[in-house]
Every structure is written in C-alpha cells, then in structure tokens.
C-alpha cells in the first residue's frame, strides 16, 4: 500500500514540471485517491443455502469479536453475492443472517489492502420464538389532546406579530380579519401563560404582540372551559396558549390606530390598545372613539358576556328585567353603520392578578358614552275590512347613552380536583332620548328616560370525583331594574279618554324590578363505553314587580291617572326541576341523545285590585336527538322536542301599558303556559371539502298554545290585547348547494329558503282573521378562492313575501318581491398592499320605479410597512353618497314604506403604529 502511494506521488511530481496549475490540482486529487486506496479493504463472496441456491437479501455484518458491535454491513444481492468495504484491520468476525436461516459467524483477519473472499452456506432454521410483546417507548410524551410547538423551530425570520408566527404552524390558519383557526375550527381563547384576558376578542393580542416574545405555543384540542370537565364533557372546542419568554414578561406594549377624514364634517375613528403580561399581573387597556357609525362596545362585547352555550353552571343566564316602551327605531337590513349617526367613546381596563398559586382574580371595567341620531320617514297604509287610512310619521331622534360595567372573576383551586369560581358583575345604563315626530302633520315632542341597573353574582363549585365523574354546584343571584319615564307633548288619544278634553300632554312612568335566585347541582358521568350521562337538579325563583302608570297631563301639569291604564303586578315563579341527558353511542357513526326535564312549577300572580292567582303545575319536557353518519358522504340528523314555556312578566300584567307614541298593550292577566312540539330533519350530502356539497333542513313547529292579539286600530291609536289561541303552525325549509369548479377555482352556491306560518287574530269588530304568511327566497353566488392576487364574489338573491288574510266577509293579500345583489372584488398586490371594493344593490319591487333601487359601494386599501410597525389604511364608505334608503314592508294589517337617512360618503385615512 505504501508503495502505491509513493508511486502516485512520483507521477504527480513529473507532471508538476509541465503545467503547474493543473498539476497542483492533480496532486491534491492523487493524494486523495492515495488515501482512499490506503484505507479500504474489500470483502466479497456469495451466500448459498444447503442445496446450493443463492440466498438473496441476507444480511452480512462485520462485527467485533469481543462485543458484537456492528462496524460495517451490507446485504446480498438477488444472486446471493455481496461485497463489503471496511477501513478496519485486525481480527473480526463476519456474521451472516437471514430470515429462516441459522446465524453464521466466520472469524476473519483483515490485513491492510488485502481483498478477502468469503463464501458461505447458511442452514435453514425456522425462528420459533414465542410471539413477543414489546413495551413501546415513545421518546416524547404527548399530553393527550395537546400539541406543543417550540416557537423557535417555526420562525422564518420575517415574523413581526404573534399571528405571523401562527401562520407558520402546520394546521393553523389565520384569516385576514385575524380569526385564528386550528384546522378549520376557530379557537375559543388565546391565552397568555394560561390566563385569558380577551375571550373571543383575542385578535387584539395576536395582531399586536411581538412574535419575539413567544417561547412555546400550545394547542388544546377537545378543550373544556372548565378544566375539571376535561375528558368528561363532549367538546370539540380548541384553544391556544402562548408561553412567553422570561425577558418579555412585564413589558408594556400596544398599538394605536388613528383615523381622520371627511368633507362635510370631521370624521374620526381612533383606538388605543395597551397591554402587559407579568407573572403576577396581566393588564389590558383599551380606548376607542368614533363618529362613523361603528359600535364601540362591539370590540369588547365578547369580553363582557362571552357567548358560551351548553356550559354547566349557567343557571339564570339571560334572566333580566323588561322595558315595555320604546321609540320606534327599527333599522333596515343594511349594515348598522350606514344609519347609525354616532359619537362614541369607550375606555376599558382588564386585568388578571395571581393572588397565589391557587387563587386568581380577574377584573374588567368599562365606560361607554354615545350620542346617537336617527332619522326616518314612514308612510303606513292600513287596510282593514271596514276602513282604510294612511299614517305618516316624520321622525328624528337624539339619544345620549351611558353604560358602565364592572366584573370580577375569582378562581380558587382548592385542590387538584376541586375548584371554586365566583363571578360578580355590576351594570349601569342611562339613556336619554328626545324625538321630534311629525305625525300626520302634527308635531309632537317625545322624551324618554331609560335606565337600567343590574347586579349579577354567581358561584360555581366543581369537584371531579374521578376520571369519569364530575359534580358541579352553582348558585346565582340577579337583581335587575329598568325604570322608564316617558312624556309626549301631544294628546292623540281623544277617542280613548272621552272626558279629558283639557289634556295637553301624556306621560308614563314604569319600572320592572326583578330578583332571581337559582341553585343547580349537576352530575356528569362518562361511561366506559363512551356514553355520557348528565343529570341536573335545581330550583329557580324569580320575582317580578311591574309598575306602570299612564298619565294625562293638563296645562297646569296636573296628572290624571285613567283607570285601566295603571299596573301594579307582582309575579313570582318557583321552578323546581330535574334534567337528565343521556348520550348513547350506538355505533361509531350513530349517536342518540335523549333528554328529559321534569318541572314542578308554582306561579303566584297578583295584579292590582285583583285576587291572588296561584297555579301549581307539573310538566315534562322530552327531547330526542339523532345523528347518523350513514356513510362517508351522507349524514342525517333529526330532533324532536316538546316544550312548555311559562308566561313571563310582559305577558301576565292586566291593564294597558303605553308601548309607543300611539299604541297600548294589554296583558293576559293570568299565569299560563305555552306548549309546542317541534320536529327537525337535516340532511347533508358530501363533506365541506368536496367538490359537491349540499345541505337541507326541514323544520316544523306546532305551537299548541300561542299568544296573539285582539287589536283595536284607529288612525290615531292602537290597542292590542293579548289573547291565547290554539294551534299555530310554522314550517320552514332551507337548502344550500355548493359546486366547486377547479378550472376557475370558484364555487357556485345555490340557496333556497321557504317558510310559512299560520295564525289567527282579531282586529276591531272583526271575526276570526286567519293569517297566512309565506316567504321564500332563492339566490346564486359565485366566489373565487385564489390564494393571492385577484378574488371576486358576486351574488344575487330574490326575496318574496306574501301575507294573506281571510275572514268571514273580507279577504286581503299583500305581496312583495325584493332583490339584493352584490359584487365584492379584492386584489392582494403583495403582503404589504391589498385593496377591496364591495358593492351592493337593493331593489324593492313595490316602490315606485324612480326610487326603488339603491347602490352602495365601500372601498378599503391597506398598506403594511415591511416591519409592520407602521400601517396605513384608506377607506371610503358609501362611495355613491346615497343619503336615503327606502324599503317596503308588509303585514296582515298594513303596508309601509320607510325611508331612512344615511351617513354620507366618508373618506377616512388611518395610521396604525405599534409601540
């Protein structure tokens, strides 16, 4: 070997004299070759079986003699031949193995540069070992349903804020509006070090916090809001948690978005976010103002009352006092921003304090001020069996609103399996409205003072008995008051109050006070076979006091309280109930859920100057759900339920209450229940990702009892008396079909809806009026799904409604067809620049042709600088500067045309910067 090396060196030396450059390279090469040859020893041979047939794919290993370590290995080819290279010298063994043959070891001595030929024969031998079970050892411990991402391994260097990093995670998607989805489910929360400040308002965090701060990202699948319910309750929620790097804790950061614009007046939209996440305390501050119609609370509504369905310990949710009187400010089917003349300001502070390892306190407080204006003109044509007339209303309103809200959440982890949660909130609202209404040529001034105060306290105790069972105990106390004071400077009710000719104005003061007490115990048991049993026992007690007083006021401000227009009602409802729910997994693809509620109800009603009415009632509410995945493409769901709804305070008062400037309502004055049966069937063909995907549902509801009205309608006023009728029916059908076309990367959607309801009412001296409402709509949409650049979405929908009234000597039909169409275009130039233009067209078939069509167009452009510190936006709203919008509506007694005043064309330039 040494010799060959030297020889090659000699050659290179001779070459050197001729061409130096080439020779240097050659020398280097030849040196390499020399070393290579020096180190290599080759072993080759052929492996055969006992009858001389070659053994293919047998393993050939060079092993050390003392400890069997494999130093080099190969396998025989199809013809049984092998060759093996090694750099080793000395005593080794060559080992031959193959399935079905006995292992063979041949000692060899490797000498530098010497080739070895080892041929061998293997002896057949069946491996007759017992079947072996191996203890699988996964080197990573995956917590069940939790995925942990190490942030650093997903950085590409161009991430600025949290959502940029999230976009890099496999399986995570971030939409333009900031919605974070895991797969295709939106996350329930985005927590920071296990604390949730934002609920569903998490975009504030993901769009602002620097991605550098992230150490780890955890995704929790089958997430339970109450951690002790994990693994027991049914959940397909998903949540995300960000673990911060040590250095970023306690740092303050945030952003500000400042927007200004307008021609006719100064328009602005501003917003400041500021936050800090420490180990002990976390803070989030928000301030915003705008006068371009945007609801300021919208930002934090999810933080105040997060929408959570089907959560245990929700006894009392939705219990509140009622207001009976309102100024008619129904808004048309337009974006709320188009009609909302406002001047909103909001500040909020949200904080979490970790008291110790077991206790956590979360506080939320905000104040919202708003000045709203609203304008409309309504022309209503009443068509009744004995008369027809037209009312005109020219209405404008100013409203100043104040809302203050405070909330405390206290969590105490008593032990690993025991938890106590307390939530207390205080809500105070103060609304003052002044309206100027010209009614059939008469000018009236209305004034409404509308207040609300609510205290809500909740205590929830959770105990996990074992892996399969959990017990929850919750109590709730709610106190809600909604006083109202109304004055109208005109007296429109001369026909109602005959001896009140000196009346100048009218007024009404009213108040509903409500106390609610509730306690509920709940038990959940996840059975071995995955079935789920849930049982609840509880009791609720709600006591309402309703006071209303309608007053006729004369010139000297003397009030007259007409009889039949005053209410003092006390209504107490005690409901002791138990609920049981069982989820039966008959097969993997067939679920059956049965639910039964048993209620023992005690109603106690006292109206002014009336006997106390007491009602004891026991009833059952059964419900049955079925979900059947017939196969990969077909899913069927059905539901049946029988429900009993107890009449509420706004049903059971006795006398007239003023509900708007020309209308009174009279209650039913008796405790009663409304029973209904409902049937639902849903069918789905295909999956969401398929080229063809269709959904259809049919609902049928039979209201065995139903509140309707006996109305007394005159041009100047209307009195509705609540009556109970039997057997009202409601039927509706929905279908959607989607077909994706790959060639144009677009989806064609077809929608069809139909609904029909039938009921009975009475107007003036009429006999029974049978009302049949029908409406149907159908539409098409085409939307592209390009991943960058240009995208379009266009659609049109026709909506037809028909109201048919039939009575003994009279029948009448109103019908109306409207059309809504839109065209949305967007262009993404790059990650920095995107623009979009959305255009809408509204057409009302029953309006005169000169003003039955309305166009709206909104434009936005966003420019994001490379480091995302500074972003610019331009938006233009209502480009056509459409100032009024008229729509047409029909009912069983009237048709009406309403025109609304709209916010003008607004250009807004905004700057967004981080700090």
């Amino acid at each position, binding site marked *: 070997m040494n010799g060959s090396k030297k020889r090659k060196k000699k050659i290179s030396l001779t070459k050197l004299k001729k061409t130096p450059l080439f020779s240097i390279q050659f020398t280097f090469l030849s040196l390499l070759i020399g070393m290579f040859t020096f180190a290599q020893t080759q072993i080759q041979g052929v492996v055969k079986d006992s009858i001389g047939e070659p053994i293919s794919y047998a393993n050939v290993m060079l092993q050390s003699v003392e400890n069997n370590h494999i130093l080099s290995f190969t396998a025989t080819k199809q013809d049984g031949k092998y060759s093996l290279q090694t750099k080793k010298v000395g005593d080794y063994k060559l080992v031959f193995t193959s399935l079905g043959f006995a292992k063979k070891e041949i000692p060899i001595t490797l000498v530098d540069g010497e080739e070895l030929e080892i041929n061998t024969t293997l002896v057949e031998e069946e491996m007759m070992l017992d*079947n*072996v079970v191996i203890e699988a050892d996964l080197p990573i411990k995956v917590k069940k349903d939790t*995925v942990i991402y190490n942030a650093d391994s997903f950085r590409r260097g161009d991430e600025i804020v949290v959502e940029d990093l999230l976009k890099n995670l496999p399986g995570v998607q971030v939409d333009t509006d900031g919605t974070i989805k895991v797969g295709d489910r939106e996350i329930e929360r985005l927590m920071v070090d296990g604390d949730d400040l934002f609920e569903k308002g998490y975009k504030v965090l993901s769009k602002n916090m620097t991605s550098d701060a992230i150490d780890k990202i955890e995704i929790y699948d089958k997430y339970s809001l109450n951690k002790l319910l994990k693994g027991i309750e049914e959940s397909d929620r998903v949540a995300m948690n960000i673990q911060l790097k040590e250095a970023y804790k306690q740092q303050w950061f945030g952003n500000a978005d400042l927007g200004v614009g307008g021609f006719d007046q100064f328009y602005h939209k501003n917003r400041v976010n500021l936050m800090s996440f420490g180990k002990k305390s976390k803070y989030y501050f928000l301030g915003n103002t705008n006068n371009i119609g945007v609801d300021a609370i919208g930002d934090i509504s999810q933080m105040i009352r997060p929408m959570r369905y089907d959560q245990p310990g929700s006894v009392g949710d939705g219990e509140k006092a009622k207001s009976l009187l309102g100024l008619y400010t129904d808004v048309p089917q337009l974006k709320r921003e188009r009609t909302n003349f406002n001047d909103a300001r909001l500040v909020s502070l949200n904080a979490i304090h970790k008291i110790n390892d077991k206790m956590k306190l979360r506080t939320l407080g905000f104040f919202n001020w708003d000045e709203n204006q609203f304008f409309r003109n309504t022309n209503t044509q009443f068509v009744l069996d004995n008369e027809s007339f037209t009312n005109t209303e020219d209405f404008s309103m100013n409203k100043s609103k104040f809302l203050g809200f405070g909330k405390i959440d206290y969590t105490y982890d008593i032990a690993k399996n025991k938890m106590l949660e307390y939530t207390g909130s205080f809500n105070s609202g103060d609304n003052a409205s002044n309206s100027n209404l010209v009614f059939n040529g008469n000018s009236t001034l209305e004034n409404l003072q509308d207040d609300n105060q609510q205290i809500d306290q909740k205590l929830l105790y959770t105990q996990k008995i074992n892996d399969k069972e959990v017990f929850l105990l919750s109590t709730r106390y709610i106190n809600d008051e909604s006083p109202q004071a109304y004055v109208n400077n005109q007296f429109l009710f001369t026909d109602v109050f005959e001896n009140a000719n000196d009346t100048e104005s009218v007024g009404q003061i009213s108040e509903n006070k409500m106390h609610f007490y509730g306690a509920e115990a709940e038990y959940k048991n996840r059975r071995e076979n995955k079935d789920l049993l849930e049982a609840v026992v509880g009791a609720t007690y709600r006591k309402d006091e309703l006071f209303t007083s309608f007053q006729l006021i004369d010139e000297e401000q003397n009030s007259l309280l007409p009889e039949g227009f005053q209410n003092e009602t006390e209504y107490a409802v005690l409901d002791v109930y138990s609920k049981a729910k069982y989820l039966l997994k008959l097969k993997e693809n067939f679920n059956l859920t049965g639910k039964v509620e048993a209620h023992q109800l005690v109603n106690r009603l006292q109206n002014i100057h009336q006997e106390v009415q007491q009602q004891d009632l026991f009833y059952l509410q059964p419900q049955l759900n079925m979900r059947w995945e017939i196969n990969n493409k077909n899913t069927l*769901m059905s539901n049946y339920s029988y429900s009993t709804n107890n009449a509420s305070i706004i049903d059971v008062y006795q006398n007239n209450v003023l509900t708007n400037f020309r209308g009174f309502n009279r209650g039913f004055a008796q405790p009663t229940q409304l029973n209904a049966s409902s049937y639902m069937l849903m069918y789905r063909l295909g999956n969401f990702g398929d080229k063809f995907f269709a959904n259809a549902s049919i609902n049928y509801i039979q209201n065995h009892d139903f509140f309707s009205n006996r109305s007394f309608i005159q041009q100047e006023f209307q009195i509705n008396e609540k009556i109970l009728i039997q057997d009202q029916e409601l039927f509706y059908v929905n279908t959607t079909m989607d077909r994706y076309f790959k060639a144009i990367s677009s989806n064609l959607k077809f929608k069809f809806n139909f609904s029909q309801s039938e009921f009975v009412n009475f107007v003036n001296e009429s006999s029974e009026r049978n009302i049949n409402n029908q409406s149907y709509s159908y539409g098409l949409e085409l939307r592209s799904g390009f991943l960058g650049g240009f995208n379009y979405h266009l659609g049109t929908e026709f909506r037809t409604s028909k109201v048919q009234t039939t009575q003994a000597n009279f029948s009448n039909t109103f019908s109306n067809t409207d059309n809504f169409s839109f065209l949305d275009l967007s262009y993404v130039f790059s990650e920095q620049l995107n623009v979009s233009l959305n255009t809408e067209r509204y057409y009302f078939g029953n309006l005169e042709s000169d003003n039955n069509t309305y166009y709206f167009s909104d434009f936005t452009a966003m420019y994001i600088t490379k480091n995302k510190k500074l972003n610019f936006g331009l938006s233009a709203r209502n480009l056509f500067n459409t100032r009024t919008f008229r729509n047409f509506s029909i009912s069983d007694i009237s048709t009406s045309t309403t025109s609304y005043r709209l916010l003008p064309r607004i250009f807004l330039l905004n700057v967004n910067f981080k700090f």
Partner: protein
Amino acid sequence: MRHFFFLILFSLASYSQVTKVEYTFYKNLGYPVTQNWTLVFNNYESYFYKTNSDTKENNANQDKVLNNKHSKDNSFSHNINFKLDALSFYHLDFNKDSLYFQANVLEDLYIVNEQIPKLKWNIVDEFKIIDNYKCQKATTSFRGRSYKAWFTTEIPTQTGPWKVNGLPGLILNLVDENSQVVLSALKVNFYPALDLKKEVEFIVPKGKPISLKDFVPLSDNEIDEIIKRSRSKSNRNYTSSFIKSKTRHSLEISYEWEQEEEEED
C-alpha cells in the same frame, strides 16, 4: 429439469418465513395522530399497512395537515378530509427494486411507484435492550428528516416499516430528530412457512398508478386546493387573504431530484 424446478419452488416456499410486526405510528405533522400499523415480510418483500383502526378519526386522511373541522354552522360541523374506502399501505419488493404505496390527493386515489430508497446508514456504537432484543443505534437522513433507529440483528431482515430499509436487522424504534415521526414496534409474531401472499390478500391496490415524481406536485398542491375550496364556499364576511405556501409538513420534506435541481442551480 422438472425436479430442479420443483426443488427451487419447495425451497422458496419452505424457507419464506413470514414475520409480522405491529407498530404504533405517531405523526405530529401539525396535528398529532397515533395509528396502528402492521409490517409483514419475508426475505423478498414486505407490506406495511394501516391496521383497522379503532376510532373513526383514524380512517380519515390524517397525514394531511388541513384535516380538521370547519367552523360550525348549525349542528353540522364541516370535516375537511376525504374519507376513502381504501387502505393505506406501503409495499417493498426487493426482487423488482420497487416500492409502491396507496395514497390520495383530495378524492383521487393513487398507487405511487418509486424505486426502493437506498438509505445511507451510520451505525453508532450505542446499544440498548428493547424488551429482550439487543438493539444497536443507527442514524440516517431520508428526504429532509434525520432519523435515529434502534434495530436488532436478532430478527434479520432488510426491510422495515414505512419506506425505511437497509439495516441488517429489524427496526424496533425509529424517531426523527424533531420527534414529529415516531415508529415503535409493539409486538412481533413469527409464522414459519406461511405464504405471505395469502397474508396480504386483503391489500388490493385500487388507485391510479403514478410515479412518485408526478405524485409529489399533486400532493403539494392539495392543501392549496383545499383552501381554495373552503374559501370559495365562505360567506361575505370572510375576506380572502394572501396565503404563503407553507413548507412541506409531511413525512417527506425534500426529494432527491429536488436536491439535484438545487445543486444544478
């Protein structure tokens, strides 16, 4: 002559000992999935197939990244996955130097062909006993991932689970450096003189044959196609955004021919 043929046949049949190994196949390619797979082999060929799974999620196409539920409307949740009534399997045939596997792109099923990948193993001087088997460590790089394997020469074979092959013994444990892919043997069964073909009778290739090189672009495009489909079905409130193509989050991150192209550049 006839005797000779008979002899060959006899010897092949009698010495084709069949071994069956059950594995758990853990993949965290954006979403952690644990599946049961079985490797069955003789000296010449092997099949690696998904064992009839216990939960329905496992039937779904979980190698894909975007496989989760779409936002709920009503009570139907949208599953963006393509449940196919076809078995996932890998087949290695050493005599033909061929590997093929069954996979789908959206609703289309394919049989993807390639040559058996030649992995360069680096045998490491580390040992451990997994159950009663003495295992040695070996490392390799394969299509963009670095793997660490524990193999035992006590079960001599060339083949291995998934596409991993070429060690002088059965791989009982295979982990990639990011712990995103983990294969662990659970149980080993030996069947002397069993016909492998009969053992895998139920493995019927159904898909359209395609070469790996032609398949990869289709597969790469799948996520985009799913996003396009789901976006184009959304309502007006959803605004389309710019989507950066993500790096491949699959078992195989890069392919030999791509590296060659890079080198050419």
